[in-house]
């Protein structure tokens, strides 16, 4: 805490000094409602520092940032949804290492600090490791969203195990209703929601060590463990009776549109698996915790894999060095930067120094509990894989799989692209 106060003082000193107002550009993946949230945070930074802060959001951020960096016109700060891409950019020399001591700060002030430091540390152009990325805004992915009222009306219980979840899905289907809404559409990134399913299934069917081997390509995509996880996802997505609109709708439905089926009357579906950010896309005025709620995507009741949790986060990195860019990273260390977004929607933070009362609703705290109750926490695998796989063939492969392609063909194609990736 003392360190927090000290660093906040340092920030204030930096900001209140005769610092020249600079223009600083920030590029990120957030558009729509999330853009308003990040603007609020950056607005607070602009006010405190006097800098002119400009945010540009793009739903093909992953491509745009590469083009901008190669063209030499990168924004000052880029917000990567994928550490894998940030690592590639660091290797090419497009990222500037964060200020000295940032790693120590994260270690002291973030829950499970070392893991966040590790996830933000990449090899630079000369091959030596440095801390390039600062994690801000974390998501928990192992969540299933539902409408408690609908569950009550139909007499369904929140399942405690994966087996119960499947039984519940079957029961809903037997009742002539549709258990799931699944949407994989996301413009150029179509397919990514399926990778979350597969990763969650991986953690529920294999020990974490296998998951780590998968992420680092020590076992191939064609390994029975991976194939099994994909097929476990297929049990849900490839079952016409289990998904709203049938299998054909899964790949074409936009992930932002998909949860709306929960709110239909009569409901188009009863459950929707998606990360903690999704309330940003719920219909206007719906209260999380009252109108809509979530439960932990349950682990298998058999075996001893515990309660695994899948998560992700956005990593902020300096793509165009300037004093103001470092000031912005300093600002992200302050509790204020976290509390502004906490008061809004879809934000979790591992920052230990924040005032938890700032959360807009108690359910976000419940998510934090899931995070803390995890026996295993793993970062989104596709975000850690090379871009060609994690943001390419894995996505298209999942779309092909949902479209009816054989799992063996899909996985060998993905593995092929990984072997070819540089």
């Amino acid at each position, binding site marked *: 805490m003392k360190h927090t106060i000290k660093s906040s003082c340092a920030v204030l000193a930096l900001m209140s000094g005769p610092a020249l107002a600079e223009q600083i550009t920030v590029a990120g993946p957030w558009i729509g409602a999330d853009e308003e949230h990040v603007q609020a945070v950056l607005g607070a930074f602009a006010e405190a520092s006097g800098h002119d802060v400009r945010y540009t959001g793009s739903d093909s951020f992953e491509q745009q940032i590469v083009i901008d960096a190669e063209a030499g016109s990168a924004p000052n700060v880029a917000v990567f949804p994928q550490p894998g891409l940030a690592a590639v950019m660091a290797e090419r020399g497009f990222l500037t290492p964060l200020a000295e001591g940032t790693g120590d700060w994260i270690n002291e002030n973030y829950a499970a600090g070392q893991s966040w430091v590790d996830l933000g540390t990449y090899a630079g*152009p000369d091959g030596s490791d440095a801390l390039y990325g600062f994690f801000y805004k974390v998501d928990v992915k192992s969540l299933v969203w539902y409408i408690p009222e609908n569950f009550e009306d139909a007499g369904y219980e929140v399942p405690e195990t994966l087996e119960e979840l499947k039984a519940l899905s079957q029961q809903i289907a037997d009742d002539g209703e549709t258990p799931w809404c699944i949407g994989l559409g996301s413009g150029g990134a179509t397919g990514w929601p399926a990778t979350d399913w597969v990763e969650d299934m991986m953690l529920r069917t294999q020990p974490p060590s296998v998951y780590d081997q998968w992420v680092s390509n020590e076992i191939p995509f064609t390994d029975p463990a991976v194939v099994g996880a994909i097929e476990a996802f297929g049990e849900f997505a490839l079952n016409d009776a289990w998904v709203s*609109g049938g299998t054909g709708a899964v790949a074409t439905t936009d992930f932002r549109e998909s949860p709306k089926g929960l709110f239909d009357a009569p409901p188009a579906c009863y459950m929707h698996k998606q990360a903690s950010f999704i309330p940003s896309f719920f219909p206007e005025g719906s209260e999380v915790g009252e109108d809509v709620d979530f439960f932990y995507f349950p682990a298998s009741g058999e075996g001893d894999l515990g309660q695994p949790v899948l998560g992700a986060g956005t990593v902020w990195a300096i793509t165009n060095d300037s004093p103001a860019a470092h000031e912005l990273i300093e600002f992200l260390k302050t509790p204020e930067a976290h509390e502004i977004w906490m008061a809004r929607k879809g934000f979790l933070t591992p920052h230990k120094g924040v005032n938890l009362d700032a959360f807009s609703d108690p359910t976000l705290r419940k998510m934090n509990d899931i995070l803390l109750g995890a026996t295993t926490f793993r970062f989104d695998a596709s975000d850690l894989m090379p871009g*060609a796989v994690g943001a390419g063939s894995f996505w*298209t492969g999942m779309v092909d799989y949902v*479209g009816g392609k054989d799992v063996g063909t899909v996985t060998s194609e993905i593995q092929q692209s990984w072997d070819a990736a540089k």
Partner: protein
Amino acid sequence: MHPALQGVITIIVGVGGCVAYFYFSNLFLDKVLYPARGPNAGRNINRANLIRPWLFLAPAVIALGLYLAYPVVETLRLSLTNRVPGGGYEWAGLENYSQMVADPKFGEALFNNMLWLFVVPALSTAFGLLAAQLTDRIKWGAVAKSIIFMPMAISFVGAAVIWKLVYDYRAAGEEQIGVLNAIVVSLGGEPTAWLTVPFWNNFFLMAVLIWIQTGFAMVILSAALRGIPEETVEAAIVDGANPFQIFFKIKVPQIMGTIVVVWTTITIVVLKIFDIVFAMTNGQWETQVLANYMYDKLFRANDWGVGSASAMVIMLLVTPILVWNVYNARKEMR
């Protein structure tokens, strides 16, 4: 500074600079380098006239070199090298090409491009010719032509968005907001997620480009039809030719050159097709095409070697058609 003021200054500097370049370089040539006076006046005038065209061409040649030749050479170099961490390069020979050929997605893209190449220019030209002929002599022909031509004014991405709505899919039982599914359902059919049906979805994407390019074909061919000498048609009528014979045996042969130009121009558009595929399916569900494959390799896989290699393939495919197109267009003009 106010952006409008910046714009005005840019225009003044740009236009003024161009005018100044031509005026002063010309002045320099005539007054300083080879003045048309003194003992060598005659020889100097000839020399100045030899140099003048190059002087006037120079800005265009330099700009073309910078924006056309340099990228081609650079792409060729990138396709033959691999990156090493830290910004260096290493010679890779044809490794990128062999890797690309081994990639099943590349084969799919090549096949789909061929499919596009056969279908789109043929149908666009045929529909354009049909529209040009049918609207030629009727009172509301101009209105019909404007409507057919209108899609030309829409960007490819805009058109893709419009057609994505046409193909939109909702589950059976729900209200269909896609025109196509709404029709199918009203006829008692089952709604289909059109864009996810392999092979056929290629044709659904092609429909968008045909929709756009028919107007272009129609305008050019309509002008060509007007240019046919009335006497030939009249002579055919006198000889007792029916309308079909007039069209296929008299009119079409006379505008064959124009048809070829229209055909090849659309072919080149097709070879570069990217926006429609990117915006509608992003190459998924087996709809990949070469340009989108290139984008995917360059900016998603960050593989500049294979990406540049596929760019070279597109260029090699476009070049002969482009040459033929220019040759035919010049022949037409004579």
